[in-house]
Structures are given as C-alpha cells and as structure tokens.
C-alpha cells in the first residue's frame, strides 16, 4: 500500500474497527530490520504486510565486479548464521562449472563444518525463541552452548561468525590438529545439554499453550509458497536438499529426514530440535574417518567459468539456498542470483498469522527463524 492509499483507507473506513499498527523496523522481536504493517481488529490480526529493504546491500550487484574467489566472502554476510553453507553453495556452483574434481578430504571437512554451523544456528534460534516468548534465561543458555562451536571455528578457520573458509576448489587451509578432539568433546557435552532444552521449554505447559495450534500452514500452502527447511518439513513437505540432491559427503552418511504433519508452531519447533539430534549423528559418523589428502584442488589463479548458466542448491539452516550464476567467459560473473530461503518463508507469514493475536504473531515469526539480511541481501 502506498502512503496515499493508506491515508485514503483510514479516511474512508470509519465503520470498521480495524486499525493499523506498525511493528516498525526497530523492534525487539523482528530479528533484524523488518517492517510489518499489521491490520488489526481489536487484538485479532486481519492482514500482515512485510516491507523489506532496510538492509539491502546490493550483494548480487557487487558480485558482478569481483572475481570468483572474491564473491565467496560476500555470501558470509547474507545469512550470517549459516555462513559456511552459503560459502559452500557458491564454491560448489563454481566447481561444477569448472568440472573440477574435489578431494574427498575437502568434502568431509565441508560437511562436518556445515553441520556444526547448522547446530550453532539452531542453538541461537532456540535461545531467541525462548526470549521472544518471555523466558529470557534460554537466550543465555543457547549462547553458552554456542560458544564452544565458535571456539572450534576460531581455531580452525580464524573467525567466529564470518568465516570465509571455503575457496573454489577446497578449503583455505587444512584443519587444525585440535579440530577432531574439540569437536568430539563438544558432541559429548552437547548430548547431555540438549535434554535440558527439552525440560526447560518443550515440555513446559505455558510454552505448549502458546505454540500448539498457532500459525497453521498446510502442506499445499507450503509447496505453493516455496517454504523449505524445517518450517516446510513441519507441514509435511519433504524438501530436504541433503536427501533429494545430495552434495559433498551427504550421500555416505545415514540420517533421518525430519517430517511432521501438524504444521503449527510446535511442529516447527520440534522439527528444529530433532534436526539438532540428527546433525550430531552426522558429525559423529564423519569425525573419526576424515580421509587423508589435499585440502585444496589445483585451480588457476584467475578462474573463468565457461559460458552458460549454473545452478547449485544447498540446505542451510533456514531452508534451500539456490545460487544461480550466469557467466560469459570473463573474470567476473555476468549475473549472480541467490534464491534465499528466508524470502519465501516470509511470504507465507500472512497466511499463517491471520486470525491469530499479536502475541501469536511473535511466536510464529520466531518459529519461522527469519534472518533479515538473508531476505534483503
């Protein structure tokens, strides 16, 4: 709605009791700068309209002038909680374009670090979910457990959040000698802590009252809006890219695809908690059997993709990330497009939130696990 339409709406609709509230760009629970224009009737939501673009940094345009090694570090900052998976997506796209043979060691290392990133993203999501609903202690617990993973990353990759550890052809440097021991210690520690998460939040009667039967998304709606990731899988849409289009080392590990059919907030919550268990299983299967070899395949100093279009999809913590590169045989790509999972997930918010109250909107947005820089790029 433009400003003019908004004013006309207010002036010409005196009979209805509807009023507009802005959950503005700066708000403690929109997880970033997102403006939601709510049409309310008392406390019931009639319509939700997201206004985006507050953190648009033209990443796709910047990629058009950088070389292929340089576009990797820009993807760190898109969905900063699953940055390794973003990097992996771009590198895999370039490697497929070059028809490059990646060493086995690289595949396994990438998979382990991806799963660790997924774990840390879900830990942060769990903490923030509790905090949005009022249990502020959970935020601190989530971050406390996340510290151990960031320590692992800091030791191996050099940075805690924007890691930039992948290059087309492999990883930047080999893993640190302490990597395996630290990861194994972390898995032992976290296996004991995750049941605590259940005790504190999942079984809590107040929590279940606030999330059961709230924010329902049917399977048809999930498919038509393109809601992927744990949010889509909780509505019955079997869309795990790791199972359907395996990449890196996912074809040689055993893990379950978590599907729930209820489609409400509680199902999305359970889907993510179960995903954390599955991630730990994947890491345990791989951590002891890292094959020996090079940490990087040989590439030319200046990478040029042959002319054509290349697409690669990857399962990030939020859903399916797609990287689409159009190349015209120059040093930089002609066009890079990212299909971000958050954008499609957000488009389903209107359907999910209608008929519920404002407090339920906060719970729904929490379970969708939106990261706004991912949506705005």
């Amino acid at each position, binding site marked *: 709605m433009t400003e003019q339409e908004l004013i006309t709406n207010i002036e010409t609709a005196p009979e209805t009791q509807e009023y507009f509230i802005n959950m503005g760009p700066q708000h403690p629970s929109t997880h970033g700068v997102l403006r939601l224009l709510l049409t309310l009737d008392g406390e019931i939501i009639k319509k939700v309209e997201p206004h985006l673009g507050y953190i648009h940094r033209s990443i796709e345009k910047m990629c058009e002038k*950088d070389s292929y*090694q*340089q576009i990797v*570090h*820009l993807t*760190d900052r898109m969905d900063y909680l699953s940055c390794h998976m973003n990097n992996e997506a771009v590198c895999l796209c370039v490697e497929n374009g070059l028809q490059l043979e990646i060493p086995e060691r690289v595949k396994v290392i990438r998979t382990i670090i991806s799963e660790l990133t997924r774990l840390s993203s879900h830990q942060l999501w769990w903490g923030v979910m509790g905090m949005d609903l009022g249990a502020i*202690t959970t935020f601190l617990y989530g971050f*406390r457990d996340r*510290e151990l993973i960031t*320590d692992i990353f*800091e*030791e*191996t*990759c*050099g*940075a805690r959040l*924007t890691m*930039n550890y992948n*290059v087309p052809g492999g990883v*930047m*440097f080999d893993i*640190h000698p302490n990597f395996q021991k630290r990861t194994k210690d972390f898995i032992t520690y976290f296996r004991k802590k995750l049941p*605590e998460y259940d*005790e*504190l*939040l999942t*079984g*809590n*009667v*107040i929590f279940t*009252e606030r999330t059961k039967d709230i924010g329902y998304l049917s399977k048809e709606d999930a498919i038509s809006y393109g809601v992927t990731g744990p949010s889509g899988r909780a509505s019955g849409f079997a869309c795990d890219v790791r199972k359907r289009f395996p990449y890196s080392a996912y074809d040689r590990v055993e893990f379950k695809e978590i599907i729930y059919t209820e489609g409400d907030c509680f199902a999305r919550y359970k889907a993510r908690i179960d995903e954390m268990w599955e991630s730990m299983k994947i890491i345990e299967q791989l951590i002891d059997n890292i094959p020996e070899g090079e940490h990087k395949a040989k590439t030319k*100093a200046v990478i040029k993709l042959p002319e054509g279009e290349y697409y690669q999809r990857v399962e990030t913590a939020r859903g399916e990330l797609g990287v689409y590169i159009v190349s015209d045989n120059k040093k930089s790509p002609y066009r890079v497009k990212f299909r971000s999972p958050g954008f499609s997930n957000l488009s389903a918010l209107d359907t999910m939130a209608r008929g519920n109250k404002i407090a339920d909107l906060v719970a729904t947005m929490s379970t969708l696990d939106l990261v706004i820089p991912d949506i705005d790029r």
Partner: protein
Amino acid sequence: MSLSADGIYNFMGLKNYISDIYNGVKSLITGMKVTGHYFTHPGEIVTQQYPENRDTLKMFERFRGEVVLIHDENNMHKCTGCSACELACPNGSIEIISGKEIDPETGKSTKIIDTFVYHLSMCTFCNLCILSCPTDAIKMAQGFEHSVFDRSKLTKVLNKPGSKIMPGIK
C-alpha cells in the same frame, strides 16, 4: 491445559481437568529445577571479566585480527611490491605504492615497495590477501581492539620506516 466449556460438569471432564493441572505443575517444576541447578552452582559460570583479564587472554593463532607485514629482528621484510594482495582484495583495502630501484651490480631496475597502505576501516578480514602473497610477507595478527577516536588512525602504513627487503627474495 485443554479447556472445554462444559468440561467440568461431567466426570471425564473433571478427570481431565485434574490431570491437566497435575501435568502442568509437574512440567513447571521440571523447568524450575534446571534454572535452580544453575543458581546453586556458581562455579560453572563461563563468562570472563574482559578488561581485567587482558594479561591472561590468549587468542587462537589463526584468529584474523588485522593484517601486518612480518618484520624480523633486523627490520627486514619480504614484500617485493608485486601488488598480488592489492589485486586479490575484494574491496580495495590495500594500496601498494611501489618504486623502482636500480641494482648497482647488474644495472637492472626492480620494483620495491615504497608504502604499503592498509585501510583497516574497510577490511572485511577475508584472508584472500594472505593466500595470494607469493613470498608470505603478510600475516594476520591477533589484535582485536581496534577502536580509536580518530578515523585517520585506521589507515595504517604497514612497512616500518627504514626497513629493507630481505636479500634473496624475488
């Protein structure tokens, strides 16, 4: 607690009502036990008192704090001024100003480094410059306290005055 409007008026409803209350209270007490455990074990506190522990703080060796040019004890570095790092940097945080030096023996002119300008304010710490250096002249140091009051202090010249290139490096 599932609430039915007439739930209390029949016997099964009464049983549900009481079991709802019992299960609800039990789940709340389980939650309180978790936080109570952390309250009674202050020895498990993981936070560090930051400015006071600067002496004992040890960062990991691969931590990307800022780019530095390695100098050895004789104030010599290995940078040839080849600008590979300048080309590799995605957003122009490195500027190499190079000059020419005439080698007295052979009469050939070689490129040497005049000033290595590093814009810390623009650096994204992506590590690509370190990877592209052919002589391993630069590395990432572990300092992370970069806040200054004056923005011009963030533009650093990395080669120390009077430093010369090590012999034998091309």
